[in-house]
């Protein structure tokens, strides 16, 4: 048997797919956030909320991309704490914008 070393349990692939699923969930929430801001009418606060939601979504996308590209080896390094904190910050930001557009 030759070829590149791989994990017999496909752990890196499973983790990569978990990141993909999470990015997808984040996209749905971001779309809901943009819709919420647009339904309220074209106000300055609405534009600000759209920009903030998109920014949080882009941040999550960047984190996921960095992690997924680092997953290419057979034995990836553990998740850097900074990336975990950044992903959580983007999630919390989406919730805060949602609460702000409620009123």
């Amino acid at each position, binding site marked *: 048997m030759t070829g590149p070393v791989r994990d017999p349990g496909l752990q890196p692939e*499973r983790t990569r797919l*978990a990141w993909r699923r999470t990015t997808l969930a984040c996209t*749905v929430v971001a779309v809901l956030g943009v819709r919420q801001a647009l339904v309220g009418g074209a106000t300055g606060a609405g534009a600000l909320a759209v920009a903030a939601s998109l920014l949080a979504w882009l941040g999550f996308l960047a984190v996921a991309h960095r992690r997924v590209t680092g997953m290419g080896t057979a034995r*990836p390094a*553990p998740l850097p*704490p900074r990336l*975990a904190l950044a992903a959580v910050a983007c999630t919390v930001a989406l*919730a805060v914008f949602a609460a702000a557009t409620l009123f």
Partner: protein
Amino acid sequence: MSDFTRGLRLWFAPERIREEGDTPDYRFSLANERTFLAWIRTALALIGGGFAVDQFLPGLAWGIRAGLALGLLAAGVLCALRAVGHWVRCERAMRRGEDLPASRFPALLSLVVALVAVAMVVVVVFGWEGR
């Protein structure tokens, strides 16, 4: 108390975790990461539920709608913050070779979700929607 301050220090300087113990088997770290991501998805689902209550139930009285949405959003924020805290604690326990930390959070979250569901049933049964 010292455990609390140490936890707080890990929050603000998470790179310190590398100073402790040995790097565990990469498979354990990846499994911990997937658990973290599953909690983040749960948080995102709660936040999306908060958005959905506000956007797709326009007939609900404003107070009930805002209360439900805020409750779901707060649960989502708590869930996300707790996800990263639990991930750090699990990672540290694995590096030190200790038992994984136990947590009451899943029970708490299921109670909150059950309460929101019961509130929805009450709202529908007593016909408070549509006014």
